[in-house]
C-alpha cells in the first residue's frame, strides 16, 4: 500500500511542477559584435515574456563570423532566430536551405533591421598617421586591419563603403576597383570575423587603422579607454542594416514560433531600442535616437540598395567566387 501512495504523490508532484514552470529555450544565432547586446537583451526579454506568457525562457546565444553562422544554420544548427550582420547572409538560409521564405525581409519593419550601424575607422592614440578619410588608407606605409569579406559580414560593409567612396570621388567603377585593390594591398591581417580583427588591432597591436563597425569601435573604447583608440568618421560611409529573422522550419518543429516572433518584435520596442543604443547600435526609434545623439555623430551614409542595387547583386558582383574581391586579392 505504502509504496503505491508514495508513487502517486510523486507523480502528482511531478505533474504540478511540470504545469507550473514551463521552461522554454530559444537559440539566437548571431554574429560577432552582438555578444554584449544580446546578453542584456535576453535578460530583458526573459522578464518581459515571464510577465506576458508566464513561461521561463532562456535564450541561448551563439556567435561567430556572420557568414559562418549562416552556414551552420543551413547545416542544421537549430536556431529559432538569426540576427546576422547583413540581409545577404539571411538570404542564404532561403537559397541554400529553404529554411525561410523568400520574402522574409518584409516581415518586420525597416528591412527587418531593428538597429543599424555604420563603418568607421579606429586609429592609434593621437592618430600618428593622420588618418581622416578613405584616401589615407591607400597611402604607402599605412597598415590596415579588416576582416575577410568572404567570411565576415562587417568586412563586406567595409569593402562596399570603400568602393562607393572611390566611385563617387574618382567617377568610375574601374577607378573604384583600383582604389579598393590598393587598399587591400595595405591590409596586414585578414581575420575571419569582426571580433578577431578587433583583437588583432587592440590586443596584438597590429596595424595603424582598423576599419570597424561603429559599435565594435565604441566597445573597444569602453574596454580600453577613449584616448587609446580614437574613432575617425570618414566623409562617406555605408548604412549597415544588420537584419533579423525567425527560422521558420526550426520554430515550427520546436513549436516556438510565437515566442520567437515576440523576441524579434521586442527588439523594436522602446526597451529593446534603448538596449541597442546602450550597446552602441544606432536605434531606429527617433525619440531614442535623439536621446543618444551625442554618441552617434551625424554621418553621410549611403544604403546598399541605392549604391549597389541590393545585397543579392552586391554579393554576386563582389563576393561570389571570382567576384571583384577574388580578382583584386589574388593580384
Amino acid at each position, binding site marked *: 500500500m505504502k509504496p503505491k501512495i508514495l508513487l502517486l504523490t510523486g507523480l502528482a508532484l511531478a505533474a504540478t511542477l511540470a504545469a507550473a514552470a514551463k521552461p522554454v529555450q530559444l*537559440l539566437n*544565432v548571431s554574429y*560577432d559584435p552582438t*555578444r*554584449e547586446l544580446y546578453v542584456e537583451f535576453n535578460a530583458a526579454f526573459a522578464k518581459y515574456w515571464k510577465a506576458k506568457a508566464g513561461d521561463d525562457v532562456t535564450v*541561448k*546565444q*551563439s*556567435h*561567430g563570423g556572420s557568414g559562418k553562422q549562416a552556414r*551552420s544554420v*543551413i*547545416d*542544421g*544548427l*537549430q536556431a529559432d532566430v538569426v540576427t546576422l550582420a547583413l540581409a545577404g547572409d539571411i538570404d542564404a538560409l532561403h537559397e*541554400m*536551405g529553404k529554411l525561410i521564405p523568400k520574402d522574409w525581409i518584409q516581415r518586420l519593419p525597416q528591412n527587418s533591421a531593428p538597429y543599424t550601424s555604420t563603418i568607421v575607422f579606429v586609429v592609434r592614440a593621437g592618430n600618428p598617421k593622420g588618418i581622416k578619410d578613405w584616401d589615407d588608407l591607400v597611402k604607402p606605409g599605412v597598415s590596415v586591419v579588416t576582416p575577410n569579406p568572404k567570411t565576415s559580414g562587417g568586412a563586406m560593409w567595409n569593402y562596399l563603403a570603400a568602393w562607393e567612396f572611390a566611385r563617387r570621388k574618382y567617377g568610375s567603377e574601374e577607378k573604384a576597383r583600383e582604389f579598393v585593390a590598393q587598399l587591400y594591398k595595405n591590409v596586414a591581417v585578414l581575420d575571419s570575423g569582426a*571580433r*578577431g580583427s578587433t*583583437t588583432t588591432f587592440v590586443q596584438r597591436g597590429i596595424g595603424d587603422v582598423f576599419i570597424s563597425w561603429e559599435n565594435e569601435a565604441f566597445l573597444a573604447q569602453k*574596454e580600453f579607454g577613449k584616448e587609446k583608440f580614437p574613432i575617425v568618421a570618414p566623409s562617406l560611409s555605408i548604412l549597415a542594416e544588420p537584419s533579423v529573422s525567425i527560422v521558420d522550419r526550426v520554430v515550427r*518543429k520546436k513549436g516556438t514560433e510565437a515566442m520567437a516572433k515576440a523576441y524579434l518584435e521586442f527588439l523594436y520596442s522602446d526597451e529593446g531600442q534603448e538596449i541597442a543604443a546602450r550597446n552602441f547600435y544606432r536605434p531606429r526609434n527617433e525619440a531614442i535616437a535623439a536621446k543618444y545623439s551625442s554618441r552617434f555623430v551625424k554621418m553621410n551614409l549611403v544604403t546598399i540598395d541605392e549604391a549597389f542595387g541590393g545585397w543579392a547583386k552586391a554579393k554576386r558582383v563582389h563576393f561570389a567566387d571570382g567576384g571583384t574581391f577574388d580578382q583584386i586579392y589574388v593580384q
Partner: protein
Amino acid sequence: MAAIVSTLGERPSATRASQGRVIRNPLWVRIVFTTIALIFVSSFLLLPLAAVFVEAFRKGISVYFASFADPDALSAIKLTLTAAAIAVPANVIFGVAASWCIAKFEFRGKSILITLIDLPFAVSPVISGLIYVLLFGLQGWLGQYINAEQPWFPALQAWLIEQDFKIIFAVPGIVLATMFVTFPFVARELIPVMQAQGSDEEYAALTLGANGWQTFWYVTLPNIKWGLFYGVILCNARAMGEFGAVSVVSGHIRGETNTMPLHIEILYNEYNFVAAFAVSSLLALLALVTLVLKSFIEWRHSRA
C-alpha cells in the same frame, strides 16, 4: 619474451655509449648545447606556461575562482570531461582490438588498416570536423535522406524524423569529432609493444589449455599495460585539448556545446582576459597532471 629481454638488455648499454661520447666532448661544446637547450625550453615552453598563470591571477584569487563559478564555464568543463570520458574508453577498446589484430595475426589489407588508423594524424582537424558536417548536416547525406521526397526505406525515414536525432551542433557531434582526432593514440602506442612481444607467450598459454579470453587477460594485457596507460594519457590530453574539429561541429551555443578550449576563445574575444586565462590555466593544469602521470609511468616502466 626473448625479444623484450634483448631490447631491454640493449638499451642501457646504448645509453652508456652515448653518455661516453658526450663526456668526451670539450667543455665549451657541452656548455653551449646545454645553454641553447635551456634557453629554448624556457622561452618556448616555460615562459608561455608561466604567462598563463600570471594572467589568470592578475586580478587576485577571488576573481580567478569566480571564473569557474560562471554556469557557462561549468558547462564547458563538464562537456570537455564528458567528451573525454566517452572518447577515451572507446579508443581503448578499439586500440587494443586493432593492435591485437595487427600484431598477432597476418591478414590481407593489414597495411591498409595501419594507414587508416594513422589517417586522423594526417588530416587537419578542420577536415575531421567537416566530415561530420557533410555526413550528418542538414545539407549532408543524412539531411538529404531525411528531406528526400521518395526515400529508399520510408519507414526508416519516418523513424529518423520522429526521433529527431541531433548529431552535429550537439553533444554527440562533439564526442564523435573528439573520438576521430584521438583515434590513433592508443593503437599507435600498442602496435609496436605487441609486435616486439610476438605471439610466443600466447601460444604457450593456449597449449597449456587457456581459452582465448584467459590468454588475453592473463598473458597479453599484463605485457601491454604500461603501453596502454601511456596511450590513454596521450589520448586523454588530446581529447580535452582539441579545438579545430570540435569548433566546426560545435555551433558555439553558450552553456551547451562549448568545450573548454572553445569557451576560452569566447572569453578572450569578450575582452574577459582573466577568465580566459583562468580556464586556460585549468586546462594547462590538466595537461601538467597528464605529463606527471606519464613521467611516473615511464619511470615505473623502466624499473619493471
